[in-house]
């Protein structure tokens, strides 16, 4: 009897943790609409809705798409609409709506999208930061628009910075990648659907991502610079910086966070080194780079100090 009580307590605890599972529902399975999309379009025929017929989701000859032969059309994503039709609209009546303000819980929305996409374009979704933060697919994707803004470089930045507001501020910093100008997209470097790289990068490491465009810094060089081989982020802030070349700190001070050796690396550079004082090559123009221009590595036999 105590064991039975313990089992009951365990069951009650489980119910408390999980809530009432849907399998306990006595409702009959919901029904589909009588005529599929034709039924839906009887009411939902505005341009905002019918834009989907210019997208990949509504191709009548795509055997894998919802509008392909035998596909469930609108109800492939929105779920069975029979009750919704019988009620002549109004409540969702078991159907799904999508978006950050939708009534349908985000995990349920995303499960619907992932039922088709998890094993192709979103195979790392489950381990992504977006999934962990309960972000709806439809928070970023506008499925019914003829051109989904998040899929175009020029408009994607507005979608991403809607949440990533720090990166919105970064766009206007003096040194920045050409995102504001529409010549790069966040997805040039990041995989919003998840990845096994750091910060959801599209490549395995920071350096592999950066050198996919900046291959001239890939090396290996005869003379290497350890922070460069380890991580470009050691010196660069890719989202934007007040300093030239997306540096985290201006030269010579950046270099002096590691180099304080005897001689000029330890020199305390002050405003006296500016024009009007005693103009200093350690401070002006490129600072340390004026001589050590090969900071990313040198293949010159005499490039030991990265000066050739």
């Amino acid at each position, binding site marked *: 009897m105590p064991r039975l009580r*313990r*089992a009951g307590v365990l*069951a009650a605890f*489980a119910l408390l*943790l*999980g809530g009432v*599972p849907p399998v306990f*529902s006595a409702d009959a399975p919901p*029904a589909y609409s009588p005529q599929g*999309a034709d039924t839906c379009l009887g009411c939902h025929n505005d341009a905002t809705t019918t834009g989907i*017929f210019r997208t990949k989701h509504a191709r*009548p000859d795509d*055997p894998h798409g919802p*509008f392909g032969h035998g596909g469930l059309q609108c109800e492939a994503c929105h779920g*069975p609409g029979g009750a919704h039709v019988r009620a002549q609209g109004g409540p969702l009546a078991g159907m799904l709506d999508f978006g950050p303000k939708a009534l349908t819980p985000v995990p349920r929305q995303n499960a619907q999208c992932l039922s088709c996409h998890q*094993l192709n374009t979103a*195979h790392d979704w489950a*381990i992504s930061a977006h*999934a962990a933060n309960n972000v709806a697919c439809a928070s970023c994707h506008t499925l019914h628009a003829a051109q989904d803004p998040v899929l175009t470089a020029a408009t994607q930045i507005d979608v991403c910075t809607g949440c990533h*507001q*720090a990166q*919105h*501020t970064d766009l206007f910093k003096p040194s920045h990648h050409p995102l504001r100008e529409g010549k790069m997209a966040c997805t040039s470097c990041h995989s919003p659907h998840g990845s096994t790289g750091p910060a959801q990068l599209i490549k*395995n*490491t920071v350096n*592999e991502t950066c050198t*996919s465009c900046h*291959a*001239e810094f*890939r*090396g290996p060089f*005869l003379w*290497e610079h350890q922070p460069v081989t*380890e*991580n470009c982020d050691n010196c660069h802030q890719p989202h934007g910086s*007040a300093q*030239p070349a997306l540096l985290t700190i201006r030269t010579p001070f950046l270099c*002096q*966070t*590691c180099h*304080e*050796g005897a001689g000029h690396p330890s020199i*305390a550079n002050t405003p*006296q080194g*500016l*024009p009007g004082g005693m*103009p200093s*090559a350690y*401070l*002006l*123009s*490129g600072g340390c780079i*004026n001589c050590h221009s*090969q900071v990313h590595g*040198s*293949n*010159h*036999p*005499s490039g030991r100090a990265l*000066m050739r």
Partner: protein
Amino acid sequence: MRRLRRRSYSAPAWGALATLAVGSASADTPAPPDTSGWKCAQCPFLQGAEGQVEAGVQYATGANASYGRYTGLDRSGAYVDAGSSGQFRRSDGTYVNYNLESLGLPSREGYANAGQEGLYDLRIIYDGQPSRLYDTAVTPYQGIGNGVLALPANWVNAGSTAGMAQLRSSLSPLDLGFDRSTVSVLGKLFASPRWTLFGEFQRQEKEGTDLTSASFLTQAVQLPQPIDYVTNSIDAGAAWSGHAASLRFTYTGSWFDDDSDSLTFANPYLPIVPGSTQGQLAQPPGNTLQQLAATGTLLLPWFGTSLSFTASIGRLLQNQAFLPISTLPGSGLLTPGSLNGDVHLSHYALGLASRPLSKLTVHGSAAYDGRDDETTPLSVDYIVTDTFAGGTAVTPRYSEDRVRLDGGADYALLSWVRLGIGGEYQSTHYGPGQVLTWLQDNTSWGRASIIPLDSLTFTLKGGDGLRKTSSFDIAALPAGENPLVRDSNFAPREQVFYSLTGAWSPTATFTASLEGYFANDDYPLSQLGLRSEHERRISSTLTWAPRDSLSFYMDAGYQSLYGLQYGYVGPAAAPWQIADSERFWNAGVGGKWVASQRWTLSVDGLHAPSYDTTNSVIGGLTQSFPQNGSQLDSLHFTATYSRNAALQFNIRYSFEKYDMNDWALGGVTPSTVPNLLGMGLQPYHHNVSLFALTVRYKLGPSTASAPK
């Protein structure tokens, strides 16, 4: 009997747990309907062709490299503004799409793709990306572009820039910048419902004139660097997708080629030693990266669990012939004649996410990254700046192994409270000859999401981090390096961070969001080098769309970054300090109004100043550098007039003003610094008005017909 009874007693509980585990997955799935009567007769599918052409002119006043940096609108005057897009569909599923934009500018881009639904897809993409660096540069060097920079025949060498008598008369302006163009050809073959074969070839060319510099011992010179880079890349493989698993095999090859291996330049100074009349820089060597990767996902039948993995191995090779050790007469060649550089890269990762309870989600991943530099170190008798023998040194090679574990869990405590915890552990082991043998970076965090009202959500997150390292191997430091300094990427670090995000949507038409962030990084064991960094950030966005035809937005952001570092003065003296404080503001406002069926108007305004203040403290004396910073103000206005369904006129006016202060550049002429023959680069400024008038004409059916 005893065992049986125990099982039967426990069965309800475990059954309930199992039910919970699968509850979310076992949704009420009705039987598939008979869709034979679903004709989709009302569906406005496209059949045939449709497209649009846009052409016009835009006229810029005040444009320069600063304004046109990434667009190519880098001079005042008129530009063609043209583009086009279109698509074609046939009832057998074949299709063609294309899009062309900014055809009158170096930033032009476009794509075309064709295929048959469910069978294959081919795509070709072109992207032009200008990068205008400076149009304020001047240089006495000639022969730019051929890799040998010469000075004028009447050049007077001197010990400092002030003594270079022909400097002023020899200066010629030049534009620094380059054009990056990328062409990609992609193909997909849907070989079967399960298998897809894919391939992409990409060629990226980067051509122009960049900025570099070099020195003869302590006498430096800025140089125009001709660049002509080509990177060819291939990604090809196969993907398999089943009911509960997927696999993808990919081969990646990337070949970087530099058209020139060196940049030779005349010495404008009096040679420090006889014969040191020219120098030579190595240009980036050609290299090759090849990788094989397998990725996959497995959906497990328990608790909605998914497992994903990646395994990747690769090699990075470089074997370009070395340049001579120096341009000094009598200098020899390094043996062997090339590096035979060989770096092995590996990446293995496993990720797991699960919902063991309907209120609990967990996720985690483990990743290993290896960089194994198997290049043979070489002993080099090197020459310092083509001036004098520097001695013998062995080229260092850097290898490392990194393991990264991260994970988190979220629990829906109540319908309006969600709690989460998580963390990341990162351990790096460095190869021989480095100052550290290992480094660990641990971060942990907790967060609470609260929904006090349906329309209001707050998330508070906080955490800390600790970076620990092995003892610092002073013997591995480069000769002469101060043992008291801790390289900023090797220094032990303590972190704390907090963030608050909130969103309020009281109506379907109004949304307000707020984000705040606070972080402190301290390097308590660094006697010299980076000591602390702070970040403070707050931003907010308001959007209001009172009608479908009318919407407004406002956004604002503020960020403050602070860094403090110490430097060496002497064994008994207090270190010098540099404190850098950066502040960024941005405020934007705008709206869109569909005034009628014919007129649509939109306006956007932006104000974004930044300030960068640097103070030095030496011997108790504080000195301030002039304040650096920038200010961007812009106003964009667009009006669209639709004459009919096919014809549209677009009118655009953009005003943009940008001013930048930079004490490293401002007022620095080629001869300002005695031992730096500069190029006189000046901070960016522009004040531009851009007018554009284009006509867009739609071709093809304005209302698509349903398929037969």
